[in-house]
């Protein structure tokens, strides 16, 4: 079996994860497994000290130090390097700024990257509309990429938002 990430080397590491009754399997070559942080201790021992989780996930190989320390959140001014060290995110704008680092991290912690729970009732319409717009774009992309499961989730999300909007 070939590695699911690079698709080139033989997969020698096999991971199985059970979160909320859902089983996820990953087959990786050693190099990709190490890059993704699966061989670091924090993956095997769920210590949940977040600094180790963040650190464990984004090994230096993946994020060049210079980038992590240069890009600053426009709102709070922190760099991802600082956030990683402390294990605490700076402000709500950091989520957007450091999306590329945080989304994989959220995926690893929760096994999901999309919120399905409640939303503030007072969420402003314009924001909702913006969101719908964004989702539509993602939906288009998903269809282009033939990711139909993802597309179905997006479609439902858009329908839900539209329904909320018309209420």
């Amino acid at each position, binding site marked *: 079996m070939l590695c699911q990430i690079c698709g080139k080397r033989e997969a020698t590491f096999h991971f199985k994860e059970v979160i909320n009754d859902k089983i996820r399997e990953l087959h990786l070559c050693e190099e990709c497994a190490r890059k993704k942080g699966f061989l670091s201790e924090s993956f095997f021992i769920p210590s*949940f000290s977040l600094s180790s989780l963040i650190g464990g996930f984004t090994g230096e190989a993946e994020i060049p130090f210079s980038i992590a320390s240069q890009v600053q959140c426009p709102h709070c001014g922190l760099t991802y390097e600082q956030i990683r060290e402390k294990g*605490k995110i700076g402000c*709500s704008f950091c989520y957007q700024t450091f999306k590329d680092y945080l989304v994989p991290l959220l995926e690893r912690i*929760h096994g999901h990257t999309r*919120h399905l729970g409640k939303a503030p009732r007072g969420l402003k319409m314009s924001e909702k509309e913006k969101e719908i717009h964004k989702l539509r774009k993602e939906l288009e992309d998903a269809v282009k990429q033939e990711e139909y499961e993802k597309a179905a989730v997006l479609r439902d999300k858009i329908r839900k938002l539209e329904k909320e909007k018309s209420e």
Partner: protein
Amino acid sequence: MNLKEMVSSPGYWLRGDGPEAMIVFSSRIRLARNLKEFVFPPWAQSSLLKSVAEKLLKAVKKAVYFKNAYYIEIGKLSPLERDFLLERHLISQEFNKGGEERFLVVEKKEILSLMINEEDHLRLQTIFSGLQLRETWDLINKVDDALEENIDYAFSSQWGYLTACPTNTGTGLRASCMLHLPALVISGKINELLKEISKLGLVARGLYGEGTEAQGDFFQISNQVTLGLTEPQIVDNVERIVREVVNQERRMREILLKRNRVQMEDEVGRAYGILTHAHLMNTRTAMNLLSRLRLGVDLNLLPKIETALLNELLFLVAPAHIQIREGKTLAPLFRDELRAKILREKLNESSKR
């Protein structure tokens, strides 16, 4: 406010009137929320925390749920007073460190409380007696809605409620139950069970939450995942698994009683004897003996004692509770003496009823 008053009036959730209250002490849910425009507390300067606190306190005072509440400034408390609130599950380990611009608001029944400027700007909590997480969710959901009318929360429709720690992102919801599992501990089944639980996305801890050791066979079970599930899904999941743990504990109690009746009678009888006659008692011993006492009462091997008293005793014997009750700090030996006295008096009083 007077903390001493709180000693003699235990929180409503300790009354032991919820379902399965002998095994499941409490159902607790907390929500993590942040204000949109403000830097999260771990990075914020004191002036900013001050405006956050002002904004939140104003919103809280408007909400009908906190009409009858204590407003407590954490920075003004002594370490002993903070320990007391920690023992009562009203503040977290993080809050126990003290700090400026931090507030605890707790309504008098202690069912509803909130912390301002903990790791997140707002941590809302509800605790109910017994296993009733769904009811707990219904209440906290309403309170959250009420507060939200006057607060602009940090929220994204992709990631949900945005929190300082990515382990809370999404719903910001942690649902937990406190359980008493002596039979599973005695039979050695507990480790296996806790391992199973962690595979289901849940986590088990000691009585006082994160990083604490389990004492006197008391455990806390809570959800790990906060993103990608709806709140009712998370809550149902925890409730379902806790119910299964309760069933296993019950089955194990029956087995122990069938196979080792005399040993069990001896064990709980000794615990009762020591609790009602000792004159010195440290916290750890008290917790262990109270655990045995609770088991003995539940299995009808001991005289009937009200669940509310069994619950209350676990708190009355905690170090800060003893000292607040006396109104001063005390050396460990004095505490041990007082602890033994409280136990003797309360249990003898109960046996006369």
